[in-house]
């Protein structure tokens, strides 16, 4: 092959080789080349190239196109068995690299499996409802005349379902539902059951649940009827047939007749209930108003195409209904099957937004890419060791595609091994994962047929993606050169490896920066001075309107304990106050009001929650007596405002004291407290009014923090005395506070986990690559050592190239992370700043990891006697 200055266009040549009958290929290709060379001389390269391509196209005709099948066929099964054996032997022989590969793949695949499990679960929501495609959930939007502001949600009044099903032929059935906690009695001990639902008798016509006992058609007809799930039936009755038995519900022990038992239904349902009581039991069947919207309405439509026509009729109908009331109400319909993924409104179970799922899917994809690039780096690094094998195989007549599939097969074996290990790790990690995502996955979910199918697809995908590049490289080697001992990877392979390293490290840097910033913000949230005290504060729910005398005695009994410092009754704890009120000064016109949050409290609230009074005084016992008067007109309310509220009214704290204020009823401003965060730190502090009222449903108990268990035991003992009809349940205020940032904490956890995964994988990839590079540069190192290079010199030289790659990665990733995190932080009214040291820390961490990883091989190279590497030649 002399004068190879000009080559015919490779693309055309490759195309020709692809379609041409192998029997003819050599001859025709010879012709093509001969003609090409001739044309090259006469008419120049460009024309020759063009004519060459034209010839190839014209050659593409039936007589010449032929199948690739060679004339003899080898014994595929034997070949496969042999390849498999070779693969296993190879893996066994190179134990360290096998372990690294399996470790890398396992880390990634475990993460993917868990994410896939979550996504699959979320996508399968409500699939078991056979009529799901014609069920609509009603969303109400209301507003008042003169204001453009409207409110939207799944709340509807009792009137909606009957009116709509009477008026519109499209609506077959309407179901009204509401869920509540209920107190039930198990062995005469009160127990709070969180999933207690009331529903219309049409419930079982609309949704399908399998009745184990009782008749679905009549189970919820009439008041005081109740249907239980199988497991609840077992919990409360245990016996076989429980139809007709009674269940006592609520603090006043209302007897409900058990009319049915349904089979436990799948967890992936937007309706979550353990008990289903008839809607009429609540005595709320009146159809007076569209307001009082405390219920959720589902409609069963006549067919799945009825959504649009019904919606069209709804608007004019509601306009007519609401005419002259000064309010507007519109109804929207949500498709039942789309509620979980697409609806912003929550009714019975929290939704998962589809964007969140897509994000997670993206994360999984990213992990797969990282995993594959690690594998690619590691196995191209190992390719030197396999080169001789490839050479011998090729000489013995192995076709390129046979070798290709052999190496893919090897990747597949490693992949399968990793998937097996991943299944073990995933099932071990399942409890932690469950608490991360607040779901309840079981090991059996990992083994469901559909999930196994996903796993098989994942395995094949990863084997192909990870295996094909090394397989291409290895199978494309030229036997003559390998066996001569001349072997070096092409520059394209080196470029690919380097870009993979940059890619992996960009992701790693990005994740580290994000994780540090999120952790920082979470830390800030946890330690922020919110203006109130939340350590060692117990909160308990005592029920609305419990007799105040009884609670007074309870309070004074509690205060007798040495460890209990303060006890207060209130409607909401200072962690989260959402009660909306309106206030105005007597001097303001009646139509002009200021929206404000307010919390009914007693005289001990300010002390118990550690609020700082900056003007005026705290409520006194006398103030409380003032609002306990029977006659509403005689009551005197007292207010404590925060600074923002005073400012909103136009007063300095001192000026405000003693002023009249109207908050529903008239009263006097008695004190001003420092601003405190009574809502999530996502929101800025708003005006708030604390007012005296004896009916708050909650109690907060400030304890000293010594002997917490003893104090709680004492409280429980007193509770049993004074509030025997309620279960004693308590939580700590700081826990409640932390729960408010559950999403953020989850995000922080997931990010930490993900960055740990990414760091591990990136290091493994780098480890493989540096070992490869070391092998290539063995001679160079030998010579350097002979000439007197020190260890530090060598490490500097060897890691220099990688450090450059990592620096590129840092430069790429930092701005992306900065912008994204800035956006995230801007959702908080109170947040930390993104400081430069975060990037510095991430960069330092990554660079030192790089140096350490590279040095491992450097040390090994250093320890070796240079004679060994220089001896040959």
């Amino acid at each position, binding site marked *: 092959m002399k004068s190879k200055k000009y080559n015919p266009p490779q693309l055309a040549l490759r195309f020709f080789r692809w379609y041409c009958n192998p029997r003819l290929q050599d001859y025709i290709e*010879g012709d093509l080349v001969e003609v090409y060379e001739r044309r090259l001389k006469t008419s120049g390269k460009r024309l020759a190239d063009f004519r060459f391509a034209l010839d190839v196209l014209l*050659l593409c005709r039936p007589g010449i196109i032929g199948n690739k099948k060679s004339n003899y066929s080898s014994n595929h099964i034997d070949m496969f068995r042999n390849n498999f054996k070779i693969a296993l032997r190879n893996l066994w022989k190179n134990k360290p690299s096998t372990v690294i590969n399996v470790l890398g793949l396992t880390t990634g695949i475990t993460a993917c499996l868990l994410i896939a499990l979550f996504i699959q679960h979320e996508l399968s929501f409500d699939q078991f409802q056979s009529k799901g495609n014609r069920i609509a959930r009603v969303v109400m939007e209301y507003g008042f005349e003169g204001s453009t502001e409207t409110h939207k949600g799944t709340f509807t009044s009792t009137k909606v379902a009957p009116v709509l099903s009477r008026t519109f032929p499209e609506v077959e059935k309407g179901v009204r539902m509401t869920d509540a906690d209920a107190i039930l009695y198990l062995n005469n001990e009160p127990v709070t059951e969180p999933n207690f639902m009331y529903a219309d008798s049409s419930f079982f016509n609309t949704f399908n649940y399998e009745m184990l006992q009782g008749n679905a058609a009549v189970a919820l007809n009439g008041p005081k009827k109740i249907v239980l799930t199988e497991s609840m039936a077992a919990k409360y009755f245990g016996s076989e047939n429980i139809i007709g038995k009674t269940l006592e519900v609520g603090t006043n022990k209302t007897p409900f007749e058990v009319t049915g038992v349904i089979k436990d239904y799948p967890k992936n349902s937007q309706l979550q209930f353990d008990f289903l009581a008839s809607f009429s039991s609540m005595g709320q069947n009146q159809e007076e108003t569209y307001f009082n919207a405390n219920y959720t309405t589902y409609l069963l439509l006549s067919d799945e195409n009825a959504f649009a026509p019904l919606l069209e009729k709804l608007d004019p109908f509601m306009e007519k209904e609401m005419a002259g009331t000064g309010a507007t109400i519109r109804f929207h319909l949500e498709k039942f099957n789309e509620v979980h993924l697409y609806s912003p409104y929550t009714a019975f179970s929290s939704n998962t937004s589809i964007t969140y799922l897509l994000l997670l899917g993206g994360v999984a994809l990213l992990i797969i890419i990282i995993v594959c690039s690690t594998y690619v780096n590691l196995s191209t690094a190992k390719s030197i060791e396999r080169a001789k094998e490839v050479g011998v195989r090729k000489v013995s007549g192995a076709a390129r595609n046979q070798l290709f599939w052999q190496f893919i097969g090897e990747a597949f074996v490693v992949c399968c091994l990793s998937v097996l290990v991943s299944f073990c790790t995933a099932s071990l990690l399942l409890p932690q994962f469950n608490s991360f995502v607040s779901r309840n996955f079981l090991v059996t979910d990992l083994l469901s047929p559909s999930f196994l199918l996903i796993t098989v697809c994942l395995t094949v995908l990863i084997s192909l993606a990870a295996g094909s590049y090394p397989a291409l490289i290895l199978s494309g080697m030229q036997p003559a050169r390998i066996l001569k001992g001349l072997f070096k990877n092409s520059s394209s392979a080196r470029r690919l490896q380097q870009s993979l390293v940059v890619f992996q490290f960009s992701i790693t840097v990005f994740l580290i920066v994000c994780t540090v910033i999120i952790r920082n913000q979470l830390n800030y949230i946890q330690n922020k001075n919110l203006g109130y005290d939340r350590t060692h504060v117990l909160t308990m729910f005592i029920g609305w309107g419990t007799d105040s005398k009884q609670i007074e005695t309870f309070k004074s009994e509690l205060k007798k304990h040495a460890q209990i410092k303060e006890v207060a009754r209130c409607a909401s704890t200072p962690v989260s106050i959402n009660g909306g009120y309106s206030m105005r000064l007597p001097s303001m016109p009646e139509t002009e009001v200021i929206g404000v949050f307010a919390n009914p409290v007693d005289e001990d609230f300010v002390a118990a929650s550690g609020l700082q009074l900056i003007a005026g005084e705290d409520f006194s016992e006398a103030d409380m007596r003032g609002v306990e008067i029977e006659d509403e007109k005689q009551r005197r309310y007292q207010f404590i405002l925060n600074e923002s509220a005073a400012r909103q009214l136009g007063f300095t704290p001192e000026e405000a004291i003693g002023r009249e204020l109207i908050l529903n009823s008239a009263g006097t401003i008695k004190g001003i407290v420092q601003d405190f965060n009574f809502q999530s730190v996502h929101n800025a502090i708003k005006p708030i009014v604390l007012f005296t009222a004896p009916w708050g449903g909650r109690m907060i108990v400030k304890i000293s923090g010594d002997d917490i268990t003893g104090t709680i035991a004492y409280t429980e003992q007193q509770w049993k005395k004074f509030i025997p009809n309620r279960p004693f349940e308590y939580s700590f205020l700081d826990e409640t506070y932390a729960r408010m940032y559950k999403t953020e904490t989850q995000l922080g956890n997931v990010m930490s986990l993900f960055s740990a995964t990414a760091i591990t994988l990136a290091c493994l990839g780098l480890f493989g690559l540096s070992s490869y590079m070391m092998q290539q540069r063995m001679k160079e190192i030998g010579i350097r050592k002979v000439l007197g290079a020190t260890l530090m010199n060598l490490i500097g030289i060897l890691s220099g190239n990688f450090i450059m790659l990592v620096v590129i990665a840092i430069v790429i990733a930092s701005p992306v992370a900065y912008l994204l995190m800035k956006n995230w932080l801007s959702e908080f009214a109170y947040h930390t700043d993104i400081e430069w040291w975060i990037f510095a820390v991430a960069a330092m961490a990554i660079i030192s990891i790089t140096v350490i990883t590279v040095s491992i091989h450097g040390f090994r190279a250093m320890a070796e006697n240079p004679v060994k590497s220089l001896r040959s030649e």
Partner: protein
Amino acid sequence: MKNYQLGEFEEIVLLTVGILNNEAYSVAIKDEIESRLKRTVSMGALHTALIRLEDKGYLKSFSGESTEDRAGRPRRYFEITALGKKAMLYAKETREQLWKAIPKAVLEVSLQKLAVGSHQ
């Protein structure tokens, strides 16, 4: 009587293989046809014709030496078989018979016409 199938282009290729005698390989055949008949021959058409002729048994081929100007690929030389020769003869004879069967007048008339045409 055996039926020898031979298309027009196939006949030309067969004849050219005969002309080149022992030196007949694809590029040479192509060049020969192009220079003698002043028509361009595409590689595709030529190879298809050669393959078809070989399938019919009119040509046989053998692999030649590999040369450097062909990037190491061998030439494939063609040779007319006995059957091929018969087919060529058959084609020639049928043509001649047909020629002979044309009444002289037909040819003359057209010659006259040509003459008239040239006078104008």
